[in-house]
């Protein structure tokens, strides 16, 4: 596939690994924010190939993992109602709520459907006027323009049986929260290439300056991640701390203006809880008053559904890179993809699942199979 296959070129990847190892005079600690990048790193064994020169810490870039427990509970509640067709991206179906997950709701007779695009959910609403269709609008800034358009179109077309359960989070506040943390070890960031495709990178410039960390806007294929890593190492070795763009084929400094405009019309910044981390102020999107009619939380009166997460759950430590998945005492034993204890083991992008599925034979003690 064009613009994908080239970035999996083995010769180029190996050369980049070589360069990184040559350039690093010490071990540098980098964090990649996005779950898609974590997936590539662990799946291709990149962190093993860079061992000694680079320590990769996996950031909270999995919106599935960071969706707060109570949003899952609200989703489960809605999906269980007879008058509602609950639609969602595939990866949300296995995330455990306080009681069960969406797959189990489906098994019990709830109507839960996987869709590829929020526009498909809207289409479903148009085709089923006697039902309510709710779409689980989870994601980072990358997905906000799509979700915003679905809501905008719903209003334009006069579709009243469509609403969204919003759980959007934004990256920069999470990055700042990490950098502010006293035990932060991250020295440079690989910023999420598709988040920046939408938002541009102007928000990261003050962060790089204030906290003196290189931030490289990076793509998702092995060559992208290795090139981004090399750029980060070069900055670190030279004592620079700027925002640079590796993902030039998709990202411009100002991002996608039309997308940003529609997002700002439909959404507004709100405080959001991040599962395992806690509330980060102004770190999420919520629907504006103007679009309140499309807000499933208000439409179906979900404010009473609350859940408290124990501050002792280790998933949070993994999400911010304080511990590696293998360092969690339950990893691979009481917690594995079939019986996940926390969200990072459920989502295929979660650090724990990535390690379990791709890397455990290297890093963990032998398991009974």
């Amino acid at each position, binding site marked *: 596939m064009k613009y994908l296959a080239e970035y999996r070129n083995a010769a180029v990847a*190996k050369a980049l690994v070589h360069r990184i190892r040559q350039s690093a005079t010490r071990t540098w600690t980098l964090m990649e924010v996005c779950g898609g990048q974590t997936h590539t790193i662990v*799946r*291709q064994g990149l962190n093993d190939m860079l061992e000694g020169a680079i320590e990769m810490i996996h950031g909270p870039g999995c*919106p599935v993992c960071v969706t707060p427990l109570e949003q899952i509970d609200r989703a489960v509640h809605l999906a269980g109602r007879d008058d509602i067709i609950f639609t969602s*991206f595939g*990866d949300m179906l296995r995330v455990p709520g306080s009681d069960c997950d969406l797959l*189990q709701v489906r098994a019990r007779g709830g109507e839960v459907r996987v869709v590829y695009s929020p526009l498909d959910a809207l289409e479903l609403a148009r085709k089923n006027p006697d039902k309510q269709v709710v779409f689980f609008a989870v994601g980072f800034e990358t997905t906000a323009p799509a979700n915003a358009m679905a809501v905008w179109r719903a209003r334009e077309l006069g579709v009243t049986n469509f609403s969204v359960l919003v759980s959007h989070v934004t990256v920069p506040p999470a990055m700042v929260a990490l950098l502010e943390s006293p035990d932060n070890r991250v020295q440079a960031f690989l910023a999420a290439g598709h988040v920046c495709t939408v938002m541009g990178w102007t928000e990261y410039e003050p962060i790089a300056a204030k906290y003196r960390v290189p931030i490289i806007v990076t793509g998702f294929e092995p060559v992208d991640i290795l090139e981004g890593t090399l750029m980060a190492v070069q900055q670190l070795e030279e004592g620079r701390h700027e925002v640079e763009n590796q993902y030039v084929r998709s990202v411009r400094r100002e991002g996608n203006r039309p997308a940003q405009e529609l997002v700002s019309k439909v959404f507004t910044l709100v405080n959001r809880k991040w599962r395992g981390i806690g509330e980060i102020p102004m770190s999420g999107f919520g629907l504006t008053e103007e679009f309140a009619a499309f807000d499933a939380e208000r439409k179906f009166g979900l404010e009473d559904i609350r859940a408290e997460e124990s501050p002792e759950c280790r998933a949070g430590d993994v999400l911010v890179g304080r511990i590696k998945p293998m360092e969690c005492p339950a990893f691979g034993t009481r917690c594995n993809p079939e019986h996940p204890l926390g969200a990072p083991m459920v989502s295929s992008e979660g650090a724990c699942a990535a390690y379990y599925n791709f890397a455990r034979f290297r890093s963990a003690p032998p398991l009974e*199979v």
Partner: protein
Amino acid sequence: MAEERGPALAGGLVCPVPTTQYDRVQLGHGSGGKMSAALLRDRFLPALGNPVLQELGDAAVVGIGPAEVAISTDTFVVSPLEFPGGNIGSLAVHGTLNDLAMMGARPLYLSAGFVLEEGLSFEVLDRILAAMGKAAAEAGVPVVTGDTKVVERGKADGVFINTTGIGMRRAGFTPGPSRARPSDAVVVSGMIGRHGIAIMSARENLGFEVQVQSDSANLYPMVERLRGALGGTVHVLRDPTRGGVASALNEIAAASGVGVELDEGALPVPGPVAAACEMLGLDPLYVANEGILLAFVPAPFADEAVDALRMHPLGRDARQIGRVTGEHPGMVVMRTAIGGTRVVDMLPGDQLPRIC
């Protein structure tokens, strides 16, 4: 329904997220992954268990007098009923023929049981039956007996078909899932991922179009080629159906107590299958196939095995994709194109399209 809090972790911490336990059948139980395996192991085997069933081979081999007879049964519930490259009828014939062939048996006779949903159009039924007839005739294996039931609208997805086949095992040709040995070559007979993607493209909700046909086919002729060339040295044969190549290799690794190493660069994935998988965030290794086989043969015979397969039109893309090792028993590990390594695990349930 289990509502217990998660178990206590070391150091007195208790994770608030409860263990997900199922008290009823989930769709994932039918996907061929870990949940399916657990269902068999925890519910079916204890009730029905006997030495033959415990083998969990694609077919059972039983002695009837002096003969070694293989029996296999399979139920087909695919939706949509018709898809590029076939329909539930041709699938039902090929599927059972292939299960027999994977045990090294020559398929002889089939039975077919139908559960028809009230309201199924005769046009569709005729197309299904025509495809079945054609598949059976081409294989030279007649459907000699059958059964038909009709259920109310809504109780079946158009039609469910069960086929049972019997075949004759040959002396000295006894492939089985527990016979893989370290240093064996792992050979695949053709391109992977076609059937699953063809099915997905025929479903509406994902909305994509792709020029991929199901590979549904009778594998016995290729098995005959392998038997002719290698005889009893063929250790394992397996058709990687639901759960894909990854699940089949994991099952064999576990049954034989060996590890498997794969070369990502050697996997034959057609362009459109790769593209569809990229779009949906799926891994071709887990996508179902209905017309390819995996063969484990001793390393010195790898080339002969590939050549034998390539002599048949269905096997023109045959190649070696990996090898068996004594290390990491039960685990499948893949060397990636850029030189890294990753574990290719069994999935817990269905592979879900992802967006991350």
